[in-house]
């Protein structure tokens, strides 16, 4: 399910399936996309931040078109304890690999992988912080 911002329209709440993973997409060429994500984050229930949220930064192939400072994005990931993935949608190989990663993450978040839960992502983040 794709949405340009949050909150989702309440009219369809009863029809909506359970949400297992929220991926916030930030286009490095658009400052607006970062602002949009920051505003939308406020509408996400706190329980999602236990591994069911991730940030996907797109457009990283074009460093020269950068409108967002990298520090701001890393700080966002740290503040919300969620992983930050980088990709370049214009390159098919990277696009496919990123999609596969997201599907794997989704499988874990939905509880389809025995022995691994969304909380694993949080502890992975914590470990790299301590390094």
């Amino acid at each position, binding site marked *: 399910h794709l949405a340009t911002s949050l909150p989702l329209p309440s009219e369809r709440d009863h029809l909506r399936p359970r949400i297992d993973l929220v991926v916030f997409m930030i286009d490095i060429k658009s400052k607006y996309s970062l602002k949009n994500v920051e505003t939308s984050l406020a509408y996400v229930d706190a329980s999602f931040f236990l591994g069911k949220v991730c940030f996907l930064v797109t457009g990283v192939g074009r460093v020269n078109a950068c*409108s967002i400072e990298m520090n701001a994005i890393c700080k966002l990931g740290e503040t919300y304890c969620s992983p930050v993935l980088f990709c370049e949608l214009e390159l098919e190989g990277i696009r496919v690999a990123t999609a596969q990663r997201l599907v794997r993450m989704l499988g874990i978040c939905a509880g389809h992988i025995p022995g691994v839960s969304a909380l694993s992502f949080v502890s992975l983040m914590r470990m790299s912080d301590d390094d």
Partner: protein
Amino acid sequence: EKADPQKTAFLLRKAWTLYSVTPLYGFRRARLRDYARLLGAFIAAEKQKGLAVEVGVELDIKVALSSLAELRGSELDQAALLVQLSSRSRASSRNSEDKPVWLGWFCSVFGDDLSENVPEHFTCLPLFLSHGAESYTSLVGSWFQKTFDCCFRRLAISPLNLSWMVAMWAGCKLDRAASAVELLFSVPRLSQPLDISYAIHPEDAKALWDTVQKTPGEITQEEVDVFMDCLYAHFHRHFKIHLSAAKLVKVSTAVVSAHCDGIVKILHGQYLPGVLMLLTELAISQIQ
């Protein structure tokens, strides 16, 4: 370092194409005359080969290399290196004036980040600016690359860095009436390309920047963000367009105008060192 305004006046009000250059190996200041001769011979040879710059025009290209000690940030920087190409038509008399045809210069203004880590025999002049035909630029560039084992790359300026330039110099106090601060945006992903030009009265820009900047002489990323966000918010209020979703392509202030393709024009000599310092930093980060 106060540069003599006369010596650097020729740099102003010209459109310079920017390049980053890796350190030059085996460059010796004492040999400038030799280098000029060799470069001149190289250019003549390339023209003979048929890689002529202008077909059918009989032109002798004369090369002059000189140092400009005034153009540097500190004593740790190398003095700037100037390359001038001038032409003398063979048809005219021997005493006719040489016509300047192309101008390029290498410089480093507070480029310590690069020069302090570089081994012996390397000369650091990371910023290269050229004015004139692209064909001459590529001839001169090839010769330098072959002779000093260095690498030239076009220096692009990201929207992030263009925003810094606006914030740094929109609020500058200038003696004469300052020109408007202009931001040019290009809107992506439309069937017809759309450019948006946003002009701000220099007094308003300065007033806004003065409320944002906390410590005079110091600028932080947050202050630049707040400044730009105010400009975007103002535009959105009037036109319902989010400029932050568009690509900032060109900025113009009274001090400097810069295009994301790496083309700058410096308009005021007083801020020349400051502009060159920022451009040197951009060149160094492209190299590293």
